[in-house]
C-alpha cells in the first residue's frame, strides 16, 4: 500500500443550500440522493455532511427540527459541477422527509465534516466491514484503495437490503457478502466473514461501520488477534461541528469524545463500548 492516496487533511466545510439532482428509491427503504453542490471542496473517505430539506434561513419548516448526519458516499466533478451522492435508509421522519424531496428542490448542506478513515499502513491488508446503512461510509474508502491490498465484507438482513452493492461489485476489489436470510452470499452475520480474514493475513487493519453490536464484535475480534481496528460511529447530532455536545460517547481515556469532531472515525480501542447506549 505504498501508493495509498493522501487524504488526511479535511477541507473547510461548506455551508450551502443545494439543489437535488436526483433522489431514487432503491428498494427496502434504501434511497440514493444526488446533490448539485457548487464549490464542493471535496472530501476524504469517512467524512459526513449534515442534511436538511428546505432552504437556508427559511422559517417555514420547523419540524423535524434537526438536520441529519449522513456519510458522504461519492462525489464526481469539481467546482460548479460537483455532484455529491448520499445513500440513506428511511428510518424516521427526517429521512422520510428527505426521501420526499424532488429533483430541483433545495436541501441545506453542511460538510464535509468529521475525521476521515486513516490510510492503511504500508504492508497492511485493509479489511472493510460494512453492515446495513454503515456500508455507505465505506464506498469511497474502497474506491480509493482499489488496486491495493483491500478486501470488502458486506452484510445486511437480505440481498435487497444491501446498500450500494452494485457499486462495490463494479470496483476491482474482492467482495464477500453475508445476509441473515441467506438470500445472497453466506448465511449469517458479516462478522463471520471477518474471522478467516483475520486468521489468514499477516498485517490487517479493520475498518468497520454498521450497527453498534457489529462494530463492537469487530473491535473485539481485532483486539483478540492484536489487529488494528477503526470504526465509524453513528449518533444523533444537532450541529455536526462540535458545539451542541449532543453526540458524546464514552472513551477509555475517561470522559467523552464528540462523534462529530473527534470522530465519526475512531480507533476502536479508544471507545468505552460498555458505556454506549
Amino acid at each position: 500500500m505504498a501508493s495509498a492516496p493522501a487524504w488526511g487533511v479535511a477541507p473547510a466545510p461548506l455551508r450551502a443550500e443545494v439543489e437535488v439532482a436526483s433522489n431514487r428509491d432503491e428498494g427496502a427503504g434504501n434511497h440514493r440522493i444526488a446533490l448539485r453542490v457548487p464549490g464542493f471542496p471535496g472530501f476524504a473517505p469517512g467524512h459526513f455532511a449534515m442534511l436538511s430539506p428546505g432552504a437556508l434561513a427559511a422559517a417555514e419548516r420547523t419540524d423535524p427540527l434537526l438536520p441529519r448526519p449522513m456519510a458522504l458516499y461519492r462525489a464526481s466533478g469539481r467546482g460548479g459541477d460537483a455532484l455529491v451522492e448520499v445513500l440513506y435508509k428511511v428510518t424516521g421522519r427526517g429521512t422520510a422527509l428527505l426521501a420526499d424531496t424532488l429533483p430541483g428542490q433545495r436541501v441545506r448542506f453542511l460538510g464535509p465534516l468529521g475525521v476521515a478513515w486513516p490510510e492503511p499502513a504500508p504492508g497492511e491488508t485493509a479489511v472493510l466491514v460494512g453492515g446495513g446503512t454503515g456500508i455507505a461510509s465505506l464506498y469511497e474508502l474502497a474506491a480509493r484503495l482499489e488496486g491495493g491490498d483491500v478486501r470488502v465484507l458486506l452484510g445486511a438482513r437480505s440481498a435487497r437490503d444491501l446498500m450500494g452493492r452494485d457499486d462495490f461489485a463494479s470496483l476491482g476489489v474482492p467482495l464477500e457478502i453475508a445476509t441473515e436470510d441467506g438470500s445472497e452470499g453466506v448465511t449469517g452475520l458479516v462478522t463471520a466473514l471477518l474471522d478467516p480474514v483475520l486468521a489468514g493475513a499477516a498485517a490487517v487493519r479493520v475498518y468497520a461501520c454498521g450497527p453498534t453490536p457489529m462494530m463492537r464484535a469487530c473491535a473485539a475480534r481485532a483486539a483478540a488477534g492484536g489487529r488494528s481496528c477503526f470504526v465509524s460511529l453513528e449518533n444523533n447530532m444537532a450541529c455536526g461541528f462540535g458545539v451542541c455536545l449532543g453526540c458524546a460517547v464514552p472513551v477509555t481515556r475517561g470522559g467523552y469524545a464528540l462523534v462529530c469532531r473527534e470522530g465519526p472515525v475512531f480507533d476502536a480501542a479508544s471507545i468505552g463500548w460498555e458505556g454506549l447506549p
Partner: protein
Amino acid sequence: MNAAVDERVDLGGIALRNPVLTASGTFGYGTEFAPFLDLTRLGGFVAKSLTLEPRVGNPPPRIAEAPSAMLNAISLENVGVDAFVEEKLPALPDGVTVIASVFETEIDRYAEVCKRLSGVPRIAGLEVNASCPHVKSGGIEFGQDPKLLSQLVAAARGAASGPLLVKLSPNVTDIAEMARVCEGEGADGLSLINAVQAMEIDIETRRPVLANGLGGLSGPAIRPIALRMVWQASRAVAIPICGIGGIRSAEDAIKFLLCGARAVQVGTSNYLDPGVALEVAEGLRDHAARQGLPRVADLCGSLDFPHA
C-alpha cells in the same frame, strides 16, 4: 438606504454594533463558527457557561428531538474559567464582542468565577446563568427562588466590575418578580429565557429518552413562551432585556424587540445553520430600513397593545 439605519444598541453598558447576539451553549467558544460567519459582524456572542474548574458533561443520550424543538441535558461540560481566559479568548479575532457566561452550583463559586473574569480586557460583560440547580436547596434552580436569586445576583454584582446580565429561568410562576429581584440587586440587564424544563419518553423501553431524565427544551416551539415572558419582564423593570427563545429569522427577532427586548440572542438555530445569526442581523436592519426607522432600536417596546 440600509447604510442609513443605525443598528447600535446599548445592553446594560455593553455597546453592541447590532442587537443580534448568539446564546451561551449554542455557540461554543466562538472559533467553531469562524468558517461559517464573520464573528466581528455579530452584535456579540455569549460564550459557553464557565465553572471554576473544567467539567465533564452528562452520559449519553444527551439530546433528543421534540416537535419543532430539541431537548438537551449536557450539564456543566466546559473548559473551566482559567482555560477560557488563557486559551479560548486569545483565539478569537479582534473586534469580537464577547460576553462570558457564569454557571456554578454554589453562590461563592459563582462569585469567584465572576471575579476571575472581571477586568479581562477582551470580555465586554458577564451573563450569570441562574438556571443551575442549587445542590444545597435540593436541586431547585437559583432562578426559581427569589431569595436564592437575590443572593446570587448580589454576590455576582459584588464580584463583577463590568456590566452584569442575569439569564433567567423560565421555570417560574412569576417572571416579573424574578426580573425585579435582579434589578433590585444591581443587575445591568436580563437575558431570557433559558431552556424550558422538559422530558421525553421512549414507549418501548418505558424510559426517558435522555440519560439524565429531564432536559431543557429549546427551539421554535418555545418562542411564544419566551415572547410572553420578555413582554412581562419588560413591563416590570427598567433595565434592558435580551430576548432569547426559538429565534431563527429576522421576523422572530423583531417580535422580541416589539415586546420590549433591547437585543436578542439566537440559540438552537446556530446548530441547524451556523450562519443564521448574521442573516437575522441583516434582516433586522433591512426591516428597519423598509419601515423608515432611523434606528433598529426604534422597534424596541413599540408593541401596539392597548391593554398593556
